[in-house]
């Protein structure tokens, strides 16, 4: 009987591990970020105790980042439909010099983002750099070209990712940002909530 319980507990442990092969603590970072309403928070500390989905974007991105933004929106809607509580969404700009809070607000308004538990963040370059390291995000600015009226135009080659963070501020899983399996992510969120 004792062996049976030992086997059961081992199986349960292996099963939980296989659902979330990653476990990397990011709660030791606490960087000041400013949201679309110019409200400053400490990230990720502000979200301690919540399940958090994080993406890194730049608002001048015409293709990949809008898809990632839209996918977070889809996850948010599905979470609401499933009545799953304690989930938050964050999109952090890796182009903070251009992405001011008012621009983030405009970006959210145009896309009808529900900002009740979804925030877009900007901040000081060094703070964002620290978080990009923690979340293993790379963004490399390409060559700058200019419009006829001499406005600079540049884009980034960047990591395409949505990261799932648990209530204890551990990274538990990463997904492609611009193309998602919605059911997989919802199942993962439910498993973390159990």
């Amino acid at each position, binding site marked *: 009987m004792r062996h049976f319980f030992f086997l059961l507990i081992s199986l349960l442990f292996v099963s939980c591990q296989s659902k979330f092969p990653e476990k990397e603590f990011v709660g030791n970072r606490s960087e000041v970020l400013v949201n679309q309403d110019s409200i400053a928070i400490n990230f990720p500390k502000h979200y301690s105790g919540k399940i958090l989905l994080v993406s890194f974007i730049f*608002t*001048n*991105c*015409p*293709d*990949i980042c*809008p*898809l990632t933004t*839209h996918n977070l*929106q889809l996850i948010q809607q599905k979470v609401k439909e499933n009545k799953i509580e304690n989930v938050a969404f964050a999109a952090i700009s890796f182009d903070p010099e251009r992405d001011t809070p008012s*621009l983030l607000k*405009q*970006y959210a308004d*145009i*896309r*009808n983002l529900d900002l009740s538990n979804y925030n877009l963040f900007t901040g000081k370059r060094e703070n964002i750099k620290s978080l990009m390291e923690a979340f293993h995000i*790379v963004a*490399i600015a*390409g060559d700058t*070209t200019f*419009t*006829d*009226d001499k*406005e600079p*135009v540049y*884009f*980034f*080659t*960047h*990591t*395409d990712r949505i990261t799932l963070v648990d209530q204890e501020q551990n990274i538990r899983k990463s997904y492609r940002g*611009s*193309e998602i399996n919605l059911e997989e992510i919802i199942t993962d969120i439910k498993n973390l909530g159990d």
Partner: protein
Amino acid sequence: MLYFLSILLLFFQTGAKITVENQWIRSAGKGMNTAFFADVKNMSSNADTLYKVTSPLAKLVQVHETFEENGMMGMREAGNLEIKPGETLKLKPRSFHVMLIGLKKELKRDQIGEVTLYFKHAGAVKVKARVKNKIE
């Protein structure tokens, strides 16, 4: 002679037919960048080439290609895009698309924008496209 020329002109026009379907523009704010997407079908019996796109919506218009390299996503300007007879060039997210750089005005859902595609044989093809928030 005029009749002959008209027939000849008609022949070349029908021989260089391009249709544009499912076109849309992703919503974005004034001064921002966005993209135009569409299915561009070459209905003629000869290959044709998309070599330029213009639009009054933006300061700069370019055809770009989204690429994936070492797990990262980026964009680069695409050269001329040849469309073989009967084939469709899919301008779509995560692939080839028309970049509208530096929007002159805000583009909100359900507005209509104009884009002109230039082909070596078919010439200028002007299309109107609806603004959408996402793939709808």
